[in-house]
């Protein structure tokens, strides 16, 4: 009852791996985009802002379809990736991580951007009068102060990835052991005759995972807040 079946632990481990990688690949560009939107003025800023928020408002299936069109073996980017590096994203767990990263991207950007907006830019100006270059200001003042936002964004992205369904199933399908994450496994169980008990177990597993993620994020956030003294 309490031990996981091979199929369950497979889905759990895969979910965690996909979520971790989706945050890892999504975070750096999200930080850059958040900084651009919060701190710079450039023509087309509104358009960039709109594109970033697309995954929040479009049907996930549409995003998955778009990813398939771009990153599939015959897509513009997908074909290039395969020719140049031999990398295939469609129907692989790496592709699932990309799908999750795209879906979680706006959440991470928003979180970091809010945190950036909350920083007193006067602190950065003060650092420069003390002889710090822009780069040093970024590393020693801006980044440490925005860390709670980065952390919150990472946790949000991670949690979003654990729940990702539509874009994933459209882009990388539902392959056991490769792309069948917890939500997809739950969906499969529901589709199976007499699968109700199995579906319930997957559902409970998802809840436990979500709560664990939230508690971890709260503990981390507390430590960071203590460290930066806000």
């Amino acid at each position, binding site marked *: 009852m309490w031990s996981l079946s091979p199929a369950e632990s497979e889905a759990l481990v895969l979910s965690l791996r996909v979520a971790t990688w989706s945050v890892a690949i999504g975070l750096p560009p999200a930080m850059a985009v958040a900084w651009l939107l919060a701190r710079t003025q450039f023509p087309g800023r509104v358009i960039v802002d709109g594109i970033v928020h697309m995954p929040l408002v479009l049907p996930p299936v549409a995003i998955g379809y778009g990813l398939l069109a771009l990153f599939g073996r015959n897509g513009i980017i997908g074909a290039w990736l395969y020719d140049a590096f031999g990398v295939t994203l469609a129907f692989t767990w790496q592709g699932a991580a990309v799908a999750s990263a795209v879906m979680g991207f706006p959440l991470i950007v928003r979180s970091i951007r809010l945190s950036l907006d909350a920083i007193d830019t*006067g602190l950065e100006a003060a650092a420069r009068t003390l002889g710090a270059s822009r780069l040093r200001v970024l590393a020693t003042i801006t980044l440490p102060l925005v860390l709670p936002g980065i952390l919150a964004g990472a946790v949000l992205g991670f949690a979003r990835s654990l729940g990702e369904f539509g874009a994933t199933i459209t882009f990388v399908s539902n392959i056991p052991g490769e792309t069948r994450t917890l939500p997809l496994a739950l969906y499969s169980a529901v589709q199976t005759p007499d699968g109700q008990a199995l579906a319930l177990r997957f559902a409970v597993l998802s809840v436990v995972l979500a709560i664990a993620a939230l508690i971890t994020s709260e503990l981390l956030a507390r430590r960071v807040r203590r460290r930066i*003294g806000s």
Partner: protein
Amino acid sequence: MTLLAVDIRANVGTFAFDARFTTPAAGITAVFGRSGSGKTTLINALAGLLRPKSGRIALDGVTLFDSETGIHVPPERRRVGYVFQDARLFPHLTARSNLLYGAGRLPPADRRTRFDHVVGLLGIESLLQRRPRQLSGGERQRVAIGRALLSAPRLLLMDEPLASLDAERKAEILPYVERLRAEEHVPIVYVSHAMGEIVRLADSLVLLADGHVVASGAAVDLMNRVDLDPVLGAFEAGTLLEGRIDGYDDAHGLLHLKVPGGTLRLPGRPLANGTRVRLKIRARDVALALAVPRDTSVLNILSGRVREVAADQSSQVNVLIEPLDAPEAPPLRARVTSLSAEQLGLRPGLAVHALIKAVALDRDPSAGRHGSALAFGTAAIDDLREEP
């Protein structure tokens, strides 16, 4: 010797700013003006945080900004320290790390002694391990001053460093600013709209109004100019005198201060003979008499001659009195009603006696231990009046 040569124009939103002045190589240059007169625009331009539209800024002969040649030295390479009104300590660093943030400019061999020296100078030894949020407003401001000093600045900018503090904290910080001038020899540009601070600190003065420099020069000269009343504030208008301590009346607790035209007696704690002291006598605290009154409580009577009687729109007149024996000294200002002026028949050339109550010259209680140029009088620091 010129420290700063400034000739700039800038636009901040719809606010047009232009400034042209030079400052002497040493001491404290105060920038005085009401809110919105362009004080912060000016020092942000000096620090490099704001790029003027056109003009030129040179510090010690080094060009920091020149629109013609396209020079705009970024703030991190100007070596201009900046103490902000709101301290701006880095919240994620301890006081010690804040202090050391800009110390990389110091030669490594000097860093340790310099750090200990500045920490001692500002009395912040016991605060080093604390975070900014664990410091009081005054303590934060002291750490901020130390942080700027330790970045080895060629010029220190202070933007109303006392404005966000209460009277007690102001009194806590001012002596440290005076110590900076006396012991650190770093030239300071001190922005303020508090006349008391200006009287006490300024060696030279730049007066700003509506985005323009109205006047600049030696503080004592400008403070005594009647035509600058609208900028300096008519209520505080008076005479700024510099004198030397010339004795102490122990029995009555009175300091003797030798000023051009005579000796004044004023209440206060003893000071060493010869100490340089700055005294502001508010024009409204000076009464006039044609003969030396007898049996009066007024201790200070300076004799002189009326130089000018200036009426303004109110029913009061400003009277300028030349001290008898010191025609080169700044004239003493008295403000009396036009009725009194009529009854006394005040006119240029008339011999008069200026009466100044000693208690009106009560010593600023916050005046520090290091008084090379203490402020006295009615614009004392405990009596700061914000310009409306």
